[in-house]
């Protein structure tokens, strides 16, 4: 699929009503750029319960081949809910540098 521009360069390029005619294009906008803090997992404390996965409002946490959880930083907005909910304190929110 041809990669779309992030947004129109000029006002003349705005589609009528800002209509989007290509499904799924929101995926190309990486909301992770809004993040001030990132979640860092300490897998030695992780019990693989998946509560971070359940509570993530972005749906950007997934399970890796070993059963641990990882956040997709392209979409993680750094809200910290995963760290707040984690039973064992395996997730720490770290300032983005």
């Amino acid at each position, binding site marked *: 699929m041809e990669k779309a521009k992030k*947004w129109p360069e000029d*006002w003349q390029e*705005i589609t*009528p*009503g*800002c*209509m*989007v*005619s290509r*499904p799924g294009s929101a995926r190309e906008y990486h909301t992770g750029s809004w993040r001030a803090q990132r979640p860092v997992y300490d897998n030695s404390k992780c019990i693989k319960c998946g509560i971070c996965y359940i509570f993530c409002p972005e749906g950007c946490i997934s399970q890796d081949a070993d059963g641990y959880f990882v956040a997709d930083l392209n979409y993680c907005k750094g809200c910290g809910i995963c760290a707040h909910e984690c039973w064992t304190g395996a997730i720490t929110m770290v300032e983005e540098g």
Partner: protein
Amino acid sequence: MSERVGMEIALAAAETVALCRPDVVAAYPITPNTHIPEHLSDIVADGRLDADFICVESEHSALSACCGASGAGARAFTATSSQGLLYMAEVVPIVSAMRLPVVMIIGNRALSGPINIWNDHSDIMSQRDAGWISMFAANGQEVVDMTVQSFKIAEHRDVMLPVNLNLDGFQLTHVVEPMMFLNQEEVDAFLPEYKPYAALHPDNIVSMGTLALPEIFNEVMKAKDEVLKGSKKVILEVWKEWEEKFGRSYKPVESYRTEDAEVLFLAIGSMAETAEVAVDELRDKGMRIGLLKLRLWRPFPFEEIRNAVKGAKVVAVLDRAVSFGGPGGPVFSEVRSALYDEKDRPMVINEIIGLGGRDVPVGDFVKIAEKATRVAKTGPEEEYEIFGVRGS
């Protein structure tokens, strides 16, 4: 073309909307527009119009239903007044932002409070900046004609904007007038079947009403402004076609006996009809006076206003809404602003008149004409005046 038929204007509006073959009508009753959707529901129930009449639970839902229906490719119509328009307000700028050609008739009524069911323009003026095309009719014939025109203008591919058509509550909605109606063949020939630019359908996926981030929002607002300003070209084309086909002329600013006029009334809505009578009486007495009737409110007709006031010494703008603590009525402040850069501009004075259904008889125009003549010599007396207030 049929003969003149006498009918209540609200019913005439409903009959004309039906001739425009809307697919969806969604409305909630509120005085004084009620007879329009009420009569449309009769027409649908009687099988004379193949449309979905949605009995919504509020005006917010009425315009939301029209928004969704229009997004799905339907020709959608609603009508409201006063608090009903305010209840729609959350949706009003969304319909224009989504470029959906919904047509709404507003039976203009004062906003509460205190509660008042009668006419002024405070309802539509509260939604002035929502990005809709906005027009005023001054009599029943104009309501009939402009209803059909509204759909054609709204749906034009270079426009795709909602239109609100304003008629004064009671003074127009509840009055019986003789009107020339179009027949179905004439309307069908003038107003083609609605072919949407895009419609919500699983076979051709589009997203409407999307998010716009700060990085693009200025450009989006610029685009919305430009399309509304550009719609005037289409409005003029549609009015030209109307005149060619049906012989009745429509202009953004109508002039009545303005030749050599030193004083001009500038009125909006039905009081312009009364003003014509006043102009006739004053002309008979030798006064050089004329009338401008503002038909097109958005997009605002700057050039037409500038040209229409040329040669006048005083323009008395008659507003039917107050901008409390502000620079005068909305029509006045915009007309004066439009003239600011002109080298030879007339003095512009503002009389706010006819609020909440207060009668505006011919004598009021005579008094305003006398005041305009006086201030032409002595200069302006105040920023604006609420006319005819007892105790002032």
